[in-house]
């Protein structure tokens, strides 16, 4: 079951990358990056348990924090940049 969950997480990450390439506008791509980051956290935690080394959880905690801070930071930049020039609709 753990191996199946790891494979499904990898598949969902690839689907998120597909949307990151095809998404019209920048916010779809930021959303895809956020999805990719949180799925990476789950992937690291599950791989740690799959290979019998639960020490990978330290990396998962650090990456969860980094992903959140970077998404909020990038959004703040785009929000302030687009205040006077509105984003074109799809």
């Amino acid at each position, binding site marked *: *079951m753990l191996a199946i*969950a790891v494979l499904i997480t990898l598949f969902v990450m690839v689907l998120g990358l597909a949307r990151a390439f095809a998404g019209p506008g920048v*916010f779809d791509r930021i959303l895809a990056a*956020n999805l990719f980051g949180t*799925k990476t956290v*789950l992937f690291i935690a599950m791989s740690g*348990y799959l290979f019998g080394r639960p020490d990978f959880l330290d990396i998962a905690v650090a990456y*969860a924090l980094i992903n959140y801070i970077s998404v909020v930071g990038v959004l703040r930049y785009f929000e302030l940049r687009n205040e006077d020039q*509105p984003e074109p609709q799809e």
Partner: protein
Amino acid sequence: MDILILLSNISLALGSFLLLTGALGFLRFPDFYSRLHACGVTETLAAFFIVLGLLLQSQDPLPQAKLLLILLFITFSSPTASHALAKAAWRAGIRPPGEHSAPADKPRG
């Protein structure tokens, strides 16, 4: 001990199902806000179930504490990131499709 492994497998299966449906909605929905809703809701709940499944499977207290930390952080930060995405998209001028999409900060009456 066997009931814990069974519960852990059920929780992992539920989390995987939520991941798949969220990714399907993320690919197929027509505009940004519906994609944001599909992705944000299922991502939080799927992460919750998967980490809960791993928590039921672990034996030592230190990995359990770390998993609990990941669980709490994802439960609080993922909805906040979705709100930040929606707020930034609204401020940038992206509107949901429809004929009554007026900006919310226009004075009424």
